[in-house]
């Protein structure tokens, strides 16, 4: 899989770095001073790198825990996100990462302990408030679990802070780590979902939607709390039928009581990201419906956005309590 590993000199001797390196016996290991030497140069091509990504192991220096964008959340007052990794195993056509980064290489920050210290401080600073920590937005943490052991390290950590919710956003059907631990009441395994026909075109390298639903059922039966994330909602010719069928399929398999939250939001990008994406996928019909608005955001026409949000909300209300619904926009 990975044939080149770049490792920062500062962390090459750490246990975590060595543990990860040992999983790629045939990879060429190259030492670097800072990850930016490899990750940041602007004249790199994301799509070409994506065909053969390298792994970069580095130490995160600052910005361990960040405020989630305003309006983003699943019911708590304070919302934060943290990223131990940039870039993803999967190759979804609409993914903002390919517009955001110059490099498709997997960048893993191995100093998990520093993240935990910062999260601990944040929890203690806002003792009285309910808060959620999101992960899996700059990568799919669960998909990379066999390499990083990130979730295996963070489940025991969050078990000490029951008031803080820990959301793992994923498309992965790897459930090994959830079999190893007892279900944690403050951990949400949040699945990104879209109609199967669209996923077959857009969610490249990711498990099929039916496999994701099967895995959700397995985890729910084990006692893990589930999040359903219809983000992004994708507009296409028969989107209403496709989404209705998707919702029906999910709730045929999963009991509503196992669902912690449901969120949805339509496709949108900053302008500069979108221009890169269009270059990468000139034949994508799904991207052809997007327009620039006066705030420099590329999104569907407002009427399409409203129609999609309202329709999906009303369809989902057939199966679930609307108090569990949240917007991703």
């Amino acid at each position: 899989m990975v044939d080149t590993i770049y490792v920062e000199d500062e962390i090459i001797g750490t246990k975590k770095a060595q543990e990860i390196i040992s999983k790629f016996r045939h990879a060429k290991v190259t030492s670097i001073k800072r990850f930016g030497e490899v990750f940041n140069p602007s004249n790199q091509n994301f799509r070409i790198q994506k065909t053969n990504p390298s792994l970069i192991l580095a130490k995160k220096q600052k910005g361990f825990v960040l405020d989630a964008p305003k309006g983003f959340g699943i019911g708590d007052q304070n919302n934060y996100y943290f990223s131990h990794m940039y870039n993803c195993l999967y190759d979804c056509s609409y993914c903002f990462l390919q517009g955001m980064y110059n490099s498709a290489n997997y960048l893993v920050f191995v100093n998990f302990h520093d993240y935990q210290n910062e999260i601990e401080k944040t929890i203690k600073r806002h003792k009285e408030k309910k808060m959620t920590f999101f992960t899996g937005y700059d990568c799919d943490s669960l998909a990379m679990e066999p390499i990083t052991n990130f979730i295996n390290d963070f489940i025991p950590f969050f078990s000490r802070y029951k008031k803080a919710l820990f959301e793992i956003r994923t498309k992965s059907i790897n459930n090994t780590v959830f079999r190893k631990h007892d279900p944690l009441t403050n951990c949400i395994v949040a699945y990104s979902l879209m109609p199967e026909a669209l996923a077959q075109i857009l969610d490249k390298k990711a498990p099929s939607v039916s496999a994701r639903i099967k895995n959700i059922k397995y985890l729910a039966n084990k006692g893990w709390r589930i999040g359903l994330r219809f983000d992004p909602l994708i507009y296409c010719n028969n989107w209403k039928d496709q989404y209705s069928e998707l919702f029906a399929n999910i709730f045929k398999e999963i009991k509503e009581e196992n669902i912690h939250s449901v969120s949805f939001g339509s496709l949108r990008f900053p302008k500069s990201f979108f221009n890169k994406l269009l270059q990468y996928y000139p034949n994508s019909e799904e991207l052809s419906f997007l327009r620039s608005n006066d705030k420099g955001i590329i999104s569907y026409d407002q009427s399409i956005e409203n129609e999609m949000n309202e329709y999906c909300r009303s369809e989902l209300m057939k199966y679930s309590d609307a108090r569990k619904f949240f917007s991703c926009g």
Partner: protein
Amino acid sequence: MIEKNFEGVSVRWVIALKGEAEEIIKNYGMKRVATTPFPVYKNKDFDMWLILSGIGQLNAVAATTYLHVKSDASYNTIWINFGIGGSRNFKVGELIQIDKITSSDFQDNYYPSPSAFKNNNIERCNLITVNKPEKIFENDGVYDMEGYGFFSFAKKIAPYELISVLKIISDIPGTDLSKIDKHRVEILVSKQIQFIEKVLENLLALQKILFLQLRDPKYFDEICLQNKFTFSQKVTLRKYLTQWQARFPLRNPLDEIRQKMTASQILKKFSDNLLR
């Protein structure tokens, strides 16, 4: 083999000395087209050029810059620095592709993209560029006198994925440098020419991917010739035509344009059509 009919082929070689370049010049049928300030060679059928830079980093930067301008190289051009080098880690005659470049003079390191190395089974190693011929080989790696200078400029004019530094080992600890003559170097290169071809083939495959990404959508030039578009209108037009091709592959966008339509009216027409 080079796909001569593919319009995106564009290759530039930067090589210090004639002895190192001779086999490449012969293999790709290049003829001399200039003598000063640097000897330059070119293939007449497709866009491949070669420059003899002379020894040293300054010459390498100057020659790369000169060739970039003289040959009107596009962004999507393959740049290869090829030549001999010394090492304590390899045998004489081995071909090495460089994956990290350091200099005895500068702090920054460079990392050629591993995409260019994929599946060719050629040894990979770091390069240390120095200012005078190395005899001691204190560190692991390959020593040369041009690679760093070449890469420091090439990375500004081409994507990382299309830049490659290739070295053939000519000297190891104990080698008498006075015995490395033109003839001996030519023999070393001729033995590796098939592997050099393989590296180039891989780079050409990457170039093709990039070319398809960067080219303008169908009818873009035609529409721009018919009407006066500002720079930002051209950006929008490019976007709309790309979306148009994906959405209405059987509809010709030229049919939407009526005579006397202004650039703004044309863009509005496309935008309205693409809305739903």
